[in-house]
């Protein structure tokens, strides 16, 4: 394998994002650099308003940085127009959110197959692949149910299945367990880790939950838009607890 360099799933260099101008300017992300290879699972922790979600949005091509670069699977996002970003999200990135964000008008099976269908797959291909993914997350029996007919845990597992149905290289999960009870949260995380290990998808997740962060390979702690520490869970778990606790308003400068 000499001469072959493994391409990182995600590389972000000196990422900055500012909103507003002049006195009303807010720097949400300030010079963050990070890299995730295939099979990595990185948790971003920090108090509310520290820039976790903004960082995830920048890495997932949902927003453009004020400065710095993002490269996903070797593709620099700065060189892509809106269509290019759409295609990249559709083909190489998966998303999981706190509020599940499934379309209430589609069945779970249709929701899971949606990225493939949007990419031009036939209904048959989409349904086959959705069945496989639903099976992986334990939802094969719920494919024809609508979101309103299943539990919160099942909704989030469907969202995870949808996030990986197109075999992305990067999975971005913003508070994926934030709206679930402990058992369901752990179950969703089990699935994420299994996928992470089995199919090698790189996972970048933001969370408040120390037990969730503790199961990541690496933890990035953020404050005021900066990564203030990067640790392996065993070393940093206590600090994570501390930083995640108080709201920004209550923090002393």
């Amino acid at each position: 394998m000499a001469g072959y360099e493994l391409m990182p799933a995600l590389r972000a260099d000196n990422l900055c994002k500012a909103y507003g101008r002049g006195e009303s300017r807010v720097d949400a992300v300030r010079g963050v650099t990070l890299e995730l290879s295939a099979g990595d699972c990185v948790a971003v922790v920090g108090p509310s308003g520290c820039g976790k979600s903004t960082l995830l949005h920048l890495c997932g091509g949902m927003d453009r940085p004020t400065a710095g670069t993002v490269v996903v699977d070797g593709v620099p996002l700065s060189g892509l127009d809106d269509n290019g970003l759409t295609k990249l999200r559709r083909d190489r990135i998966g998303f999981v959110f706190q509020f599940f964000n499934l379309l209430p008008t589609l069945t779970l099976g249709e929701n899971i197959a949606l990225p493939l269908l949007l990419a031009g797959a036939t209904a048959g291909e989409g349904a086959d692949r959705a069945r496989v993914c639903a099976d992986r997350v334990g939802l094969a029996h719920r494919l024809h149910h609508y979101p309103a007919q299943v539990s919160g845990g099942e909704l989030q597992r469907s969202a995870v299945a949808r996030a990986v149905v197109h075999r992305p290289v990067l999975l971005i999960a913003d508070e994926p367990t934030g709206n679930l009870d402990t058992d369901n949260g752990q179950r969703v995380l089990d699935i994420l880790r299994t996928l992470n290990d089995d199919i090698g998808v790189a996972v970048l997740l933001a969370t408040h939950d120390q037990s969730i962060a503790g199961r990541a390979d690496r933890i990035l702690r953020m404050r005021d838009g900066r990564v203030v520490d990067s640790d392996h869970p065993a070393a940093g778990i206590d600090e994570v607890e501390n930083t995640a606790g108080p709201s920004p308003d209550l923090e002393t400068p």
Partner: protein
Amino acid sequence: MTLFRQFIVRALVRDPRRSLATVAGLTLGVAVVIAIRLANAGSIRGFETALDVVAGQTSLEIVGAGVGVEDAQLAEMGWLREYGLVSPVIARPARLRTPDGSEHPLQVLGVDVLRDRPFREYQLVEFARGGREPSAQALLVLLLDARSVVLTERFATRHGIRLDSTVALVIGDRVHNAAVRGLLLDEGPARVVDGQLAVLDVAVAQLLFDRIGWLDRVDIQLHDAAAIDEVEGAISARLPDGLRVQRPAQRGRQVEKMLAAFHFNLTALSYIALVVGLFLVYNTVAVSVISRRSEIGTLRALGTTRRTLLRLFLGEAALLAGLGAVVGIPAGWLLAQGAIRLTSTTVNALYITSAATVPPLSWGDLLLGCGVAIPLALGAAALPALEAARVTPIAAVRGADRLSSTHHPQRSGRAALASAGFFGLAAWLATLDSVGGLPLYGLGAALAVIGGGASLVPVLLAWLQRVGRGPLVRAFKVEGMLAHANLSAAVGRLAVSVAALVVSLAMLAAIAIMIGSFRDTVSYWVGQTLRADLFVSAAGGGPVGPSATISEEAERRVAAHPAVAAVDQFGQVDLPYGPDGDLIILGAGTFEVLLEHGGLLFKEPDDGPAAMAAAAGADAVVVSEAFALKQGVAVADSIELETAHGAHRFRVAAIYYDYSSDRGLVVMDRPTFERHYGAQRPTGLTVYLEPAADAATVREALLAALGPEHRLFINTNATLRAEVLRIFDATFAITYALEAIAIFVAIMGVATTLLTLVLERRDELSMLRLVGAGRAQIQRMVMLEATLLGGLSQALGLAVGVVLSVILIYVINVQSFGWTIQFTLPVGFLVRSTVLVALATAVAGLYPARVATTFADAEAR
């Protein structure tokens, strides 16, 4: 109030496009209602103003049946002076050729100046400048000369006519040169019909109008105006047979009644745009509620009561409707200027010749605009406002209730049942008779059909939900799947605005079918009945009132042409008929010639020509279908007509199809007419040519033979047919204009509904973008939804339109106008309109589609 300002008014200001669209829709609706009211009032206002002003101080008038009052009769009625002053009058239409060669219609008033002074004020310009009124003698000097005429200052100024210049009065077929000896100040009778008045001495007028020995009426000014009821009865009792006494306003009421059905149908049509506009209010308030659920939840959490929320959103509807009314009322006045032009061709061709002017806006219009728009808007907003009041604090703040409004198969059984009920009601109402000549139950039947069609919308949407997915996915892939899912989940929301569009499109289809069928029927009728080669008529005269007649000399010159094989005279007079004094048309023609050349289409009896032939010379008549239906007359019945010798009964020999007037025609053989009404010059000639003759060439030759001294209109068969259809098309131009407005408003309704759905789904749209949907895909999805709604609406609209057209053709039209129309489908028009509606709704989807991608982008960040 503070909460209303902060929560509702600010939100409306922040979203100016949606607020403006709603106000614009309502403005259009209110404007159309006001415009039609004003145009209807304006079309007879000119006539009524003319009537009032010319009537002057006249309290009562004596008129003869059809032909007027004989001079000799007046001489025998010296007793009239016991009751008041008496003035004989000739009042007839003519045309005036100005020095520049153009011709203008005007009303000629022939009066006995000495007797008429107390009735009408004549202020002459040259006397007014000296600060005095003309004496009767001064006026007499002006008028006694048969070559003098007095015009109005307004008319003279407009056409550059100076005092003492010579003008040509075109009366019937004759051209009469006269010197302008006086100009009337713009007061009193001179204000009539925009100054289009000429005053002559009554004897001169009798001579010019071929009315020697006859008067059109005798005006009476009572000594004691308060005793009018009593005197009217007394005079009536003493009048000889063939004459009757009436009040001048009676003529206005006759005209009003004549136009009632035409106006009633226009008014009914004008409300469609307003009703459709109300769907916009529903949508706007619904959007307010949907897009602000979390805010409503917050208000509820902070202690706002359900009643307050209900009031807030109803207040929003009232505010929008109030604005719509305030702008719509003056806009209606402007729109009326156009509407009156569109209706005047019909009114002038079929009813009355009058210079129609739009009356000024009144407080009544303001009350009508606000009184109709605001309560209806509150009704339209009630549903979404109640929804707002039902919002729970927790559900709204969480934003979780959206997820629960999911994909349940729609229960459409109740809607189907309601629809069947509506159609049943329509079938029953369609069998009931008209009320006072107005098709009230027919209109009820039409409304029931519309209700039935609207109730079918949820059934149709439920059907789309059940069977639409497969075909849509096959045809449009993922966009088809998403569009189907979105529409299926929003059946409740969509039903209202789709119903609005269905109603508008059904009305369009029904009106198109009705007009198309009517046009085909008229075209066939014209082809069958207009058999003569040339049609000759005199200039001047309108559809109501004395018609211009053709002189003996002109008739002789026409008949003398070697290519002319036969000439038939046709004469007509207005006659009051029945207890209500309906103004019918009494025609006189030679039955023998009509049977040989005329080609009348008989409705009853089966052998109409034989029945008509048997009626020739006898006291029998043939009547038009409109007359038979409106007056409830059948073949072999006997009808009573006023004649010059008193009331007389005539047997109805046959009923024939006629579409020239909805007033109803009674036609008698010329000898019969002359026996009962005296000899009259004809108002028209029908000319049959030798087989080889070319009509256009003969027409030119006849015009040359008549020379400049006889002014006649000669139409060839082809040009008259074209003219009939031109008047027909002009009649229905306003119908299409009103419908176009209603459809425009309805399509705006679809656009705002889609916008509502887009707002409601903003989170889902951003999620779609995140999982890889391109902008184009989202736009295609929304536009597919729009096109699907348009297509479904058009399909249902066409089906309901066909049913509605049956009600229009066989019930409303028959009850309003008394015409039988053969049903035909204007396939070309319906196909074109379908394509147009599909395109229009797709275009209407553009804005929501653009908003959808904007949301998706914004939320994705």
